């Protein structure tokens, strides 16, 4: 059972349990599928009767998938921990409005102090610094210079 993972998929208001085996067997809400990777972000999913070609991109917190022309956003988490954890987190490093990233000042592994500027944005001809909400170490940077970013997405993730 070392190769099996349990995750929770949140789609809309629902939370579904899924078990993923390394061999590509994935059980979602009790139904089993065989998943094969076709290409970067492209999967072939089979059950006994038919198959689907599904495109997937994004990070576990912000998974986008395309099925038959529909773009769907879901979230992925370790089972049971989702609700416990998400109250601790928040939009601590997100843009306050649609904005362009001017400069990213940290990289994964950087130690930062509270108030330190992590990312410099520009919107409506104003510079908008995004500052560290607390001391910590940068776990991930999810934006890059020149990119247009929307509110509601953390630009830097702290450990």
């Amino acid at each position, binding site marked *: 059972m070392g190769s099996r993972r349990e995750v929770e998929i949140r789609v809309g*208001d629902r939370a579904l349990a899924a078990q993923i085996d390394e061999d590509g067997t994935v059980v979602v809400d009790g139904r089993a599928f065989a998943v094969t990777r076709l290409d970067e972000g492209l999967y072939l999913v089979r059950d006994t009767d038919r198959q689907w070609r599904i495109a997937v991109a994004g990070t576990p917190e912000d998974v986008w998938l395309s099925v038959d022309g529909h773009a769907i956003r879901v979230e992925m988490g370790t089972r049971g921990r989702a609700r416990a954890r998400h109250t601790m987190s928040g939009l601590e490093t997100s843009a306050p409005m649609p904005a362009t990233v001017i400069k990213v000042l940290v990289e994964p592994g950087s130690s930062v102090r509270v108030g330190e500027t992590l990312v410099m944005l520009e919107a409506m001809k104003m510079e908008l610094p995004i500052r560290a909400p607390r001391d910590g170490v940068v776990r991930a940077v999810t934006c890059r210079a020149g990119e247009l970013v929307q509110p509601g997405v953390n630009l830097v993730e702290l450990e």
Partner: protein
Amino acid sequence: MIKRLLIANRGEIAVRIICACRELGIETVAVYSAADRLAPHVSAADRAIHIGAAPPAESYLNVDRLISAARESRADAVHPGYGFLSERAAFARACEDAGLVFVGPPASVLARMGSKIGARVLMQRAGVPIVPGERPSDQSLEAIRTAVVRVGLPALLKPAAGGGGIGMKTLRDSSEIDDSVERARREALAAFGDGTLYVERLVERPRHIEIQVFADTHGNIVHLFERECSIQRRHQKTIEETPSVALTPALRAQMGEAAINAARAAQYINAGTVEFLLEGTGDNAQFYFLEMNTRLQVEHPITESVTGVDLVNAQLRVASGDRLPWRQTELVQRGHAIECRIYAEDPHQNFLPQAGTLLMYQEPKGPGVRVDSGVIEGADVSVYYDPLLAKLVVWAETRDAAIARAVAALREYVILRVRANLAFLGAILHHPRFISGAIDTRFLEDEIESLRSGLLADDVPLAALAAAAFHNGGESRAPTERTAPKGAADPFVTLGAWRG
């Protein structure tokens, strides 16, 4: 022939024009704003020149900068595309003054047809039907009442000096006339300082039908039949098709002739489009001149598909002084074409334009499927420009087959993270009124709720979730409480409608 062409535009239309040039051996010069440095239209050209900052006024609308880019690159011609400066007489004149061939009508024609009132008068003189109306020289209440009776009800009262709907009143019953005239006059005086009123027949539930015309510098003019553009929202077209199910052969011939008369009256050169309102059905349907678009249209590919011509190729040749490559009798419609405009917009948030990075972007392909696009995967969709990402154009032997092909292509289309209108387009194509052809310009307004209904998160197939789980299977981090970029928990699906 033109040797080196500067394309004063961006996005899919700039790429389209570069394609045509490649096949004619014409060198291409792209221009780009700071937001478009890596855009497909830039890399597709033989050369590219930076013309300014992202806001259009500082780049794609900057006449001086464009003319100097053409000089700098030693271009001998300029194609304006559509939108931006394409219908500005001042830009065409600046090109002419700089010795550059302007791929479009002369500045004088742009000026002539750019005035709505002037164009209407010109068309009336040329015998092109316009919406019946009168501006009584006697502006007394009685005279206006008489005019309304002559024009017939329902009617519109419009300030003669006006625009934008200010002071406009709908008259459905003669009892409304007195009160409406008083209010319209008061509002017109307040807004324009002129209380003169105009009475016009109200065309209810019209179709928007336009005719493609093409004229050369040797006096030849042809039309290339109609495009049905009634599927629109606030004058933004969403789906176009040709032929129109509303046109009988007799009506099509009449409208084609009227469009040629309009072009001749305008002393038109190159590709243009005459827009009409169509009221009623059958041979006796009435059509009225709306306006002339003095440029290539966004939806030109459906005409290309059905008539088997290359309009941009012809534009370049006619601008070089060639004769039209087709005689009217050689032009025939074959099969059926549909264009779906792929917009970065959220149908669930009042069609708010969307911006951001295209996390995944994959176009459909197949026989009879053409995608004209100006974006690639990983590109940033900018807030500065039109949210049109691409045009899906399908052709098939019949209208039913074309609808089926468009549906299949939309299902294959992948656009992730930047919300787009793929599912909304699919819902239109599945709508009984669209399938039957019973559409008019109010279709989207009338049906918006049913087109958006059935977007159920519960319908997401478990198989899709299995792929998502496998994709992220290596990760076991807890999700953070986070909303989607534009409102969470609204997975953007219409599986009900699509499964039909």
